[in-house]
């Protein structure tokens, strides 16, 4: 039954986040700072991971296709579908739950432990709005990261399959264009926005309500990662069932 307590408190936190707004001039600076920390600071890892994942998907697809009757453009097609529908939005979001989520939980948790959140509250500042709202807004740029991940994933697949001799450049590009549905991109962006909200709020919740000292900050980051990635997987399942099934 404890889970309902946490769910209730999580939604109350969301409510408080969108009430009693911090002065816009202050909020603006915080949003830019969060964009730098959460979005720009993640470009490197997202680029690296998606490029290699795209390459692995292409190679594994190529190795699985031994039948000469199957068309050569299948590698490009499978890479595109896998990267756009699943690997870019979901896998990258789980990686981001580790990178961004841990950062959010530990930074807010440290503020809690060192009484910095109490200091904000004593000053009459809505600490929920001050700390969490800029993270939510900055993660509205998360689709930009996922777009980058999609592009680099497919590029990684292209390079791996063409330069390793699994496919020709013409076949791969034809595969990418084959049976392209715009709705798949829309579906990916819907998922991405939901994941972005989860990435901003669940780690914040775990940081905000943690108790204890430095050790507990580490534990909270750990629990936050487990919950954030679990919720991402659950949302992924529900959205896929609703939009694609």
């Amino acid at each position: 039954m404890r889970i309902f307590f946490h769910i209730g408190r999580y939604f109350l936190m969301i409510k408080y986040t969108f009430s009693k707004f911090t002065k816009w001039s202050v909020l603006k600076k915080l949003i830019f700072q969060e964009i730098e920390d959460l979005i720009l600071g993640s470009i490197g890892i997202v680029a690296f991971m998606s490029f290699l994942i795209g390459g692995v998907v292409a190679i594994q697809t190529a190795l699985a296709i031994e039948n000469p009757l199957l068309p050569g453009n299948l590698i490009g097609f499978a890479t595109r579908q896998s990267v756009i529908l699943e690997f870019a939005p979901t896998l990258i979001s789980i990686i981001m739950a580790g990178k961004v989520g841990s950062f959010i939980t530990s930074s807010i948790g440290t503020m809690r432990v060192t009484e910095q959140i109490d200091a904000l509250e004593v000053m009459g500042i809505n600490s929920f709005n001050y700390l969490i709202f800029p993270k939510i807004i900055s993660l509205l740029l998360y689709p930009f990261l996922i777009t980058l991940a999609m592009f680099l994933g497919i590029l990684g697949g292209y390079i791996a399959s063409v330069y390793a001799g699994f496919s020709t450049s013409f076949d791969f590009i034809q595969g990418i264009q084959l049976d392209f549905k715009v709705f798949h991109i829309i579906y990916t962006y819907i998922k991405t926005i939901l994941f972005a909200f989860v990435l901003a709020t669940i780690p914040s919740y775990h940081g905000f309500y943690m108790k204890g000292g430095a050790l507990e900050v580490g534990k909270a980051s750990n629990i936050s990662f487990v919950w954030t990635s679990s919720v991402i997987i659950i949302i992924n399942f529900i959205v896929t069932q609703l939009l694609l099934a």
Partner: protein
Amino acid sequence: MIEINKISKSFSSLKIIDEVSATFEKGKTNLIIGQSGSGKTVLMKCLLGLHDVDNGEILYDGKKFIKDDISKVSNLRKQMGMVFQGSALFDSMSVIDNIIFPLRMFSDKSDSEMLERAREVIERVDLKDVDNKFPSEISGGMKKRVAIARAIVLNPKYLFCDEPNSGLDPKTAIIIDKLIQEITVEYNITTIINTHDMNSVMEIGDKIIFLVEGKKIWEGNNKEILNTEDKLVNDFVYSSELFKKVKLSQKN
């Protein structure tokens, strides 16, 4: 002036504050003393509205403090300054930004006016050459001074200090205590200090309330505390060898 009438606070079944009543006077340093775990910090957090009280009432200059009245509480908090035990400076901001922070949040001053006001309080707390340093780069004593500067930058009516000299050497502790007392008189504010340091009690205890297991068992000032007959107070006051010797020499 802050008055508390029979306030109580429990966590689960454990009573931390038990019907405590007191008056904290303006222009004086009011001390809440007691052993660790006696409920000092919880009492202060109740006064600040960080904890809800189970019973009783808190009055700020005669007006009842109701935590649910968000706009009133918000306005009241703008009149409060707080020095936390660990200073609670914002790690991500430089010293000057920490001090300017309340001004940036609650005043319409221009950047140059805010900087001017920050420089005034920096001078008042006797800080030098630390403007652009970060909290991790300055000493414990300096952190306390920055915390005091931040607490007074908005000219508060009420100043709360939670063990302001914990972790400081005795000399720096006395300097910080004196600084708080001077500011209290100069700004004519109601200052409440949590402490278990007898040096602080003797230096700045204009008014003292003594807590044991969440109950107020004694009230007086720094002169009266040395001569009280109350056994629990005496046990606390004369727990250190130094004070025992002082008492012995007085008797002799």
